[in-house]
């Protein structure tokens, strides 16, 4: 069996693959965080809880109504997105005028409440979700065995990221968004309904978190705590990458996933903290983050 740095190549590639999957989730979530921060100046702590909500909706749809994975892939992000729209309209909107820390604290409370609610109803234990039939099985690549579902997750997440990036950078809608980020009152003067755009942006990005939750359901166990543990890592990713650039957050998310995977191969006990260590080092060397502007 071929080895690299004393580790079988198969194991190494397997861990890099797992790292890429984690990285895809980091990328999708930090992308949403970055866009929300750009438009609303809000750090959405509830992003993890909404990702968890997406996964739970998927699980509930299958276990109670029998609605399958593919339908859930559309329904769950919509429900989560609608929920986000309501939250933005009822609460976040009224916090734009005050210190940004209050909106962070609000979403923090929302995350606590959502996690508590799901824990109360469904208990703490993880719920298994079956991989959809069409995506069961593996690709035999010769040098490694790749479960089809994992390949699908990476491709789907990357496609979504790419699509969002294209929309923001290359379309008229994206131009409006970018302009509204820079100068909302000027964009309003051009006859564009900025408050509506803000609401929809929040709803869309939150729906993106819900989408990530659906992708995650068959890989990780669906549990109330799955969101909070992920969101804190994503915060570290965001601090490393800086919130300024959409492309930057995708790239940082993926590469940190791979770094985590590599750490798991060579020094497993450090794998849970490696991202935080990287964050500390980056902050010491480059306080504004890799792609960041100083906030």
């Amino acid at each position, binding site marked *: 069996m071929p080895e690299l740095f004393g580790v079988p190549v198969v194991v190494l590639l397997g861990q890099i693959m797992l790292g890429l999957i984690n990285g895809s989730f980091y990328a999708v979530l930090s992308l949403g965080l970055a866009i929300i921060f750009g438009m609303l100046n809000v750090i959405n702590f509830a992003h993890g809880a909404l990702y968890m909500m997406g996964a739970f909706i998927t699980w509930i749809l299958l276990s109670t109504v029998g609605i399958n994975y593919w339908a859930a892939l559309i329904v769950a992000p919509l429900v989560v997105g609608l929920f986000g729209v309501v939250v933005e309209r009822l609460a976040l909107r009224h916090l734009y005028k005050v210190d940004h820390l209050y909106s962070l*604290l609000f979403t923090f409370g929302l995350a606590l409440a959502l996690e*508590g609610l799901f824990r109360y109803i469904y208990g703490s234990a993880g719920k298994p979700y079956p991989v959809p039939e069409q995506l069961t099985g593996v690709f035999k690549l010769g040098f490694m065995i790749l479960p089809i579902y994992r390949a699908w997750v990476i491709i789907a997440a990357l496609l979504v990221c790419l699509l969002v990036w294209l929309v923001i950078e290359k379309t008229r809608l994206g131009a409006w968004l970018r302009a509204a980020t820079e100068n909302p009152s000027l964009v309003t003067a051009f006859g564009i309904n900025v408050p509506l755009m803000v609401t929809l942006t929040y709803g869309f990005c939150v729906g993106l978190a819900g989408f990530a939750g659906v992708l995650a359901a068959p890989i990780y166990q669906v549990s109330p705590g799955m969101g909070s543990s992920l969101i804190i890592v994503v915060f570290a990713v965001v601090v490393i990458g800086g919130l300024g650039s959409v492309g930057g957050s995708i790239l940082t998310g993926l590469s940190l996933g791979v770094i985590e995977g590599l750490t798991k191969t060579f020094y497993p006990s450090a794998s849970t903290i490696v991202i935080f260590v990287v964050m500390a080092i980056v902050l010491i060397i480059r306080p504004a983050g890799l792609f960041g502007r100083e906030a």
Partner: protein
Amino acid sequence: MTTLLHKTLSFANNRAVRWLALLVLATALLVAPFTVYPLFLMNVFCFVLFASALNLVLGYAGLLSLGHAAFFGGAAYVTAHTAKAWDWPFEIAVLAGMCFAAILGLFMGLIGIKRYGIYFAMITLALAQMIYFLAVQMPFTNGEDGIQAIPRGTLLGLIDLSDIRAMYFVVLGFVILGMLLIWRCIHSPFGHILAAIRENEPRAVSLGLDVARYKLIAFVLSATLSGLAGSLKVLSFQLAALNNVSWHLSGEVVLMTLIGGLGTFVGPIIGSTFVVALEHFLATSGLPVSLVIGIIFMACVMLFRRGVWGETKARIAAMIEKPDSDRH
């Protein structure tokens, strides 16, 4: 009506009345452990100190830390381990916990203090999560089981602390000392400088103040006192567990400060007493704690950002203002 209010206020400002109020409070604290479950009161005291320590950075210096559980829980583990495995006496074990919290605070402060507002909150949260994962993995913490049956030892080798009332008064004494230190700090030039930085940082910089250094000092002081609170709690309950380092606790202590009133001395005392009592009640009621806490959190941010004490102070001030403006 207003004259009555003025009379009441001047009465409250009377020196003799203040001493009387203090005397009543002191008597209540002395009698309390014989009527109320002492462990509950000790828990309240520890959180009063913890929330007040956080208020020093959050309320006075305007730094939102979402990682204070790392200091509280980190110190708790260090105290627990040194007291149990190494048989360190009470005072030294507590001191070890505080030292750990101080060093950790210095480390987090040095890394994070250059970044403002939201970034600072995320950095402290992430670094605290690192401490959490370390606490899960390190062998001496026993992971999910935690460190159990921690001996309390004796105070200065004289007073046996296994007696719960003796421990009550020791905890009370330490917490009062900590609170006096905080009181001294916020009423000193140092406290005023912190407030100046919070209100207008560029102006503080242009006044020639080394802003980063003052923030760092406040942060380390806050971390150390949070460590003291954690060490006292762990010796009171004789159990060190993972919930002391989790991000939920960091959030709860922010809530305690917020609900009582940011930047007021009395606020965190009210807030922490309320939240601890509420959790005590919820624990037996079967209702989900974090759901209720989360809802209160959101309500607090939406409806009364000044907190109970801040709101009361503002109301009274408004009522005094009115008759004056009538006269002119």
